[in-house]
């Protein structure tokens, strides 16, 4: 990881940054964590004045023997510690994961889709999928080839306007996806390696400047593509029946049940205004080419 000029931070080691529509104040556990945070999100750190924030997150070292012996870090929000402590040098993935939890449990003002989302000239392609579908890796690859990154995992749809709000984050690549992205783009800006996380070996792709700079610009959904990674497969894009698309999208919505009728109407409305496809792919370069061609058609 190349070194980056450190972001000026306040005396007490806190940083305020814009994470898509949310503003977060993070009190960092150590210099290394804050440096990592700066590396990924330097462009969206706020330097000026005091801000109203959505989440005030503290990463702390516990006052137990685990402060020194195999040191740990603890995630704190609203004075609560909902999670098990993690190794101190996994502070960054713990922060990312913890922030996801905060958003998932409170941001019901949005319909929250389990999907990657990228935009081509502010027209969005939504890539919903369960773990293993390849949506994160695909979103990463598309963003490396110039698409604007809106999300790799957390699509935020405004039910009243059926548009998507951007929240470009570090994209966690797991195990073999790391090599796949490096094969695809040797100079891809990846963060530190975190071995032995719950999901295996993880490295994050840094969001590009363009995506971060435009994170306040929403995008209009135009394509709904359900990816399925299959080793060695040819890239095949097939039109998908709208009812099936509805079912699969509802299934991939985190708060579908919670939002009840609002969710039903939003998903119906969305499916009616986009082109729906299922997409099988085995190689990233084929996949990116095929999907980009779709947006030009």
């Amino acid at each position, binding site marked *: 990881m190349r070194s980056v000029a450190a972001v000026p931070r306040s005396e007490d080691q806190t940083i305020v940054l814009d994470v898509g529509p949310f503003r977060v104040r993070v009190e960092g556990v150590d210099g290394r964590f804050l440096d990592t945070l700066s590396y990924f999100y330097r462009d969206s750190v706020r330097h000026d004045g005091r801000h109203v*924030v959505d989440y*005030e997150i503290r990463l702390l070292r516990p006052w137990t023997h685990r402060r020194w012996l195999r040191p740990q870090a603890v995630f704190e929000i*609203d004075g609560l*510690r909902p999670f098990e402590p993690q190794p101190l040098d996994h502070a960054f993935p713990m922060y990312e994961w913890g922030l996801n939890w905060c958003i998932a449990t*409170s*941001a019901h003002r949005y319909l929250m889709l389990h999907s990657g989302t990228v935009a081509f000239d502010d027209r969005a392609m939504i890539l919903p999928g369960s773990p293993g579908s390849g949506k994160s890796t695909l979103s990463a690859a598309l963003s490396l080839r110039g698409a604007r990154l809106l999300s790799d995992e957390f699509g935020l749809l405004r039910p009243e306007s059926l548009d998507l709000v951007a929240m470009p984050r570090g994209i*966690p690549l797991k195990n073999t996806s790391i090599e796949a992205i490096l094969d695809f783009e040797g100079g891809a800006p990846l963060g530190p390696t975190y071995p032995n996380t719950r999901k295996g070996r993880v490295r994050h792709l840094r969001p590009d400047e363009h995506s971060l700079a435009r994170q306040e610009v929403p995008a209009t959904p135009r394509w709904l593509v359900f990816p399925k990674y299959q080793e060695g497969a040819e890239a095949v894009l097939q039109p998908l029946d709208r009812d099936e698309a509805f079912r699969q999208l509802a299934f991939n919505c985190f708060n579908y*049940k919670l*939002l009840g009728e609002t969710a039903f109407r939003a998903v119906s409305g969305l499916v009616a205004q986009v082109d729906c496809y299922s997409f099988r792919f085995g190689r990233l370069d084929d996949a990116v080419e095929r999907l980009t061609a779709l947006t030009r058609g």
Partner: protein
Amino acid sequence: MLQDPEVVRDWDVDDWNRFLPQARQARLLGRCYHLFGQHGLLDAVPARLVDQMRGALAQTRYVQSQALRELGQVCRVLDRQGIPVMALKGVAYLAAALPPSHWRNLSDIDLLVPIAEIERAEQALMRSGWLPNGEFDSYDQHYYRAWMHEIPPLVHRARETEVDLHHNLAPPVSRIRINATRLWEASLEVADPHGQSVRVPGPADMLLHNAVHLFMNDELRGGLRDVVDFRDLFEHFAQQDEAFEPGLLARANELGCGRPLYYATSTARRLTGLAASDRFLAEVGRHAPALPVRRLMAWLIEQLMSPRRLGAWQTTLADRLLFLRSHWVRMPPGMLIRHLTHKAFRSRKETDAVEPDLPG
């Protein structure tokens, strides 16, 4: 702010940053959204906080519909057995479409059945798919059944809403003895938002239950929400019925709930600006304890409920003291020692930390 919402027009960044986590933890985000809306103050609220409040309300709507659904299911089973059911607390406010139903969250539903029927009710529900929620050893079971006013909570295997069946508002061995028959006599039948017919306590009993629950049990923490409920319900009923205040006092005397009513009233006045008549306040003041106790309780309540204190050491201390007190008021001293000793030596259940399954 709860007393005079207009103050938010003068709030600065730091005030708003204190407001959000506290309101979130106190489960009052939805309440505040309504309060701001009612007073035309939403334009003064930062947009991202409006979004947070709307998110909280969406979640509230969901748990409310789950609660009403669960209520319907339980009533169906118990009706077949000829067992009368009365909704209590949050689910009662919901069923009767009282003001808190616009914003009130619930994590479970509380229901009253006659003491003679409670075991039969439990069995009927368990035959229809409800299961005890959580692990309880035989000591816990005994504690719950004989000493508390609860059988262990139940949850249906296909759903998530917890059902707590009670046969009284205060345990039989506590220092307050309520005659449950009186509760049934004063109860009312209402049609809930789903069109089902539901029995709820009379207005005075609703207030007294709130007071007893809050000041006789161990849930003072997070109790600001309950204090707000007390204020909202009191003012609603007082507006509708001139005779409400004297009626409430008489009922408190009748049921022996004067002390909790005093605490509820004084706390609601101090923290939420409860509008009660001077006459009422003077009368209820007669149930106050001796001055030193009054002062200590006021301090304890302030520490736990006043929205300033996330994580402060005083909060922890007050919390511990109130936990002890809550047992004190529920159990005779001999039982108390035995109970606390047993709890202390039982091996603790595994860590409280949550490991949710999450994206990423």
